């Protein structure tokens, strides 16, 4: 008799490997052709893509390094170069794998010809890419999106818009290329299609049982980050949406025995995603999380100018660029919309922008929603900072509140 796992595997997950493999090959080819850019996860990638510059993502490479359980080792390579252990582990592992790619089994990226950073996700990306620039000789370009307090004001939009123009100039100069209306609209359309499909996928999780657990979403989010604007990305999300809608129709959940529905906050611990499967065995599912819901808007536009205007708005308005109250609002909204019983906040040591303040937001979310939550400590790549025993105790204490 075979033992049934408490969670169900997505068929679409098989497509992920193909996409990742393809992306890796294309990145290598682009690097050889002198048109590869390393890009931050919140960067308006539609622009370089429309200018025939191929993007690849050090943050995703960091997740792979974490999942391959070589996080501490590769971070160590960065620390050997003098980077403090207190710094972001995505940055440390990226610096480490750039220094010693031959010693990194998975997650070393091909040599870039440009480094494109947008600080809508945090203030350290520029400094991280500065370090990489010193190592690879590739120039860094920053799209500065100062954090918002409330609505984006006209002068903010104008500043970012001028920054987007500067970006186009930089790419044109560096790669001897141009931004044409046709390409810009084509890429922007593909990107917004993918985002719309992804958003629908996320929304299916309001159903009970939830057709997806957070680990499923963490993995299936990869293409919308790394490949939006490309056709196969749309195809993937069409397939995923079909599978997920199929589950909803059949009343099939991501886990077999859904009892407790929780919100997850922050980047996941890539090195121990089985943590979520362990909880699945106890009937715990995460129908929503702030990480995959970070993608807010799509960029629409009929010509280059309107697309660039859209970029200046949409890319300034992301979850991590709006302050603590906005984060609390979002979490409360998700708890309400997805009918959640509680929440787990992962205090990621590496990420001040995401984590610093959770001790306060935890109180606020409980106050506003009436549901209990817990803060657990760790990191997304550096497993040395994650103590299973400690985490288990806290999560158990939370689960006991639902009995």
């Amino acid at each position, binding site marked *: 008799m075979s033992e049934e796992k408490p969670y169900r595997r997505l068929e679409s997950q098989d497509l992920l490997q193909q996409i990742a493999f393809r992306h890796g090959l294309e990145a290598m080819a682009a690097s050889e052709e002198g048109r590869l850019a390393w890009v931050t996860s919140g960067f308006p990638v539609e622009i370089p893509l429309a200018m025939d510059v191929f993007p690849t993502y050090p943050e995703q490479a960091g997740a792979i390094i974490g999942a391959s359980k070589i996080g501490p080792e590769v971070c*160590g390579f960065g620390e*050997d170069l*003098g980077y403090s*252990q207190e710094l972001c582990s995505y940055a440390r592992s990226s610096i480490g794998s750039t220094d010693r790619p031959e010693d990194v089994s998975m997650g070393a990226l091909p040599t870039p010809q440009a480094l494109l950073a947008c600080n809508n996700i945090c203030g350290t990306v520029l400094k991280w890419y500065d370090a990489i620039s010193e190592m690879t000789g590739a120039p860094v370009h920053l799209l500065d999106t100062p954090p918002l307090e409330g609505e984006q004001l006209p002068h903010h939009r104008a500043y970012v818009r001028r920054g987007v123009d500067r970006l186009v100039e930089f790419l044109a100069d560096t790669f001897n290329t141009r931004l044409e209306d046709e390409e810009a609209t084509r890429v922007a359309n593909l990107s917004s299609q993918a985002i719309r499909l992804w958003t629908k996928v996320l929304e299916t999780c309001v159903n009970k049982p939830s057709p997806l657990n957070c680990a499923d979403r963490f993995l299936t989010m990869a293409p919308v980050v790394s490949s939006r604007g490309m056709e196969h990305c749309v195809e993937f999300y069409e397939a995923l949406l079909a599978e997920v809608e199929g589950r909803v129709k059949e009343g099939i959940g991501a886990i077999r025995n859904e009892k407790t529905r929780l919100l997850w906050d922050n980047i996941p611990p890539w090195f121990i995603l089985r943590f979520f499967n362990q909880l699945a065995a106890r009937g715990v599912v995460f129908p929503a999380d702030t990480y995959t819901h970070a993608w807010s808007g799509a960029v629409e536009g009929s010509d280059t100018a309107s697309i660039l205007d859209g970029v200046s708005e949409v890319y300034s308005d992301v979850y991590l660029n709006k302050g603590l109250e906005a984060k609390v609002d979002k979490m409360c909204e998700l708890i309400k919309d997805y009918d959640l019983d509680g929440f787990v906040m992962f205090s990621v040591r590496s990420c001040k922008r995401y984590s610093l303040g959770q001790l306060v937001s935890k109180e606020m979310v409980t106050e506003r929603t009436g549901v209990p939550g817990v803060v657990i400590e760790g990191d997304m790549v550096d*497993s*040395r900072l994650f*103590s299973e*025993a400690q985490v288990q105790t806290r999560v158990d204490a939370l689960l006991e509140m639902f009995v």
Partner: protein
Amino acid sequence: MSEGSFGIGIDVGSTTTKGVLIDSSEKVLASHLQNTGASAPKAVEQLLVQLSTQSGINPRDCRIIATGYGRSIVELAYKTVTEITCHSVGVHSLNSEIRLLIDVGGQDSKVIRIGQNGRPEDFELNDKCSAGTGRFLEVMARVLEVSMDELGPLALKSKSPSTISSTCTVFAESEVIGRIGSGESASDIAAGVHLSMASKIGSLSKRVGVASPVGVTGGVALNPAFRHYLSKHLGQELWIPERPQLTGALGAAIIALRGQKE
């Protein structure tokens, strides 16, 4: 007897206080090591008495250089010099080929690149965290219920060291307790502890640049498992002086002597 013929070096550490008395040819006439205990000045007093008894020379007739954590409390000292410089000079006088020196003490560890003239060119310290220092081994010895002297030989018995992944002593202690609980052998765990130490020291060394030959001083140098795993990790043969805890005091004594010749 003129003041210029002898030099005394006193190394006041948080755990032990060491002293060396040399003559004008840098020959050691007296040396002593004792626990610092609760009163460093008292330990220094007792130390000087020992040096005096062994050599027949009055310390007040000698120039004294003080080094170590407690160097500023030595009233008779002509001046203070840090341990980094003293270890460097001391090791250089014993073996002038050594280019990289690793000193692991009770509370901190240091890596020093020694220049051609015997003085340090570059250095790195691990002084904020007890992992990678003698303290780490003490804590683990206690958990494994062996003495510090037994810990090394115990580790050497292992053919497959456990993995201790925590870099923090406090978490590593919990990890070790966990492994004992799950039935791993004491020798494998002890070996894992030394592997972890070696890795931490190795990282510190890379910041300065590993250059052959490599010397190791400090109390932990007496631990055979530490030497074994560190040598393996660095891919280098290690040179250990005969009395690895005294190199700081020796270096201080040499500096005292040379200072008078100028």
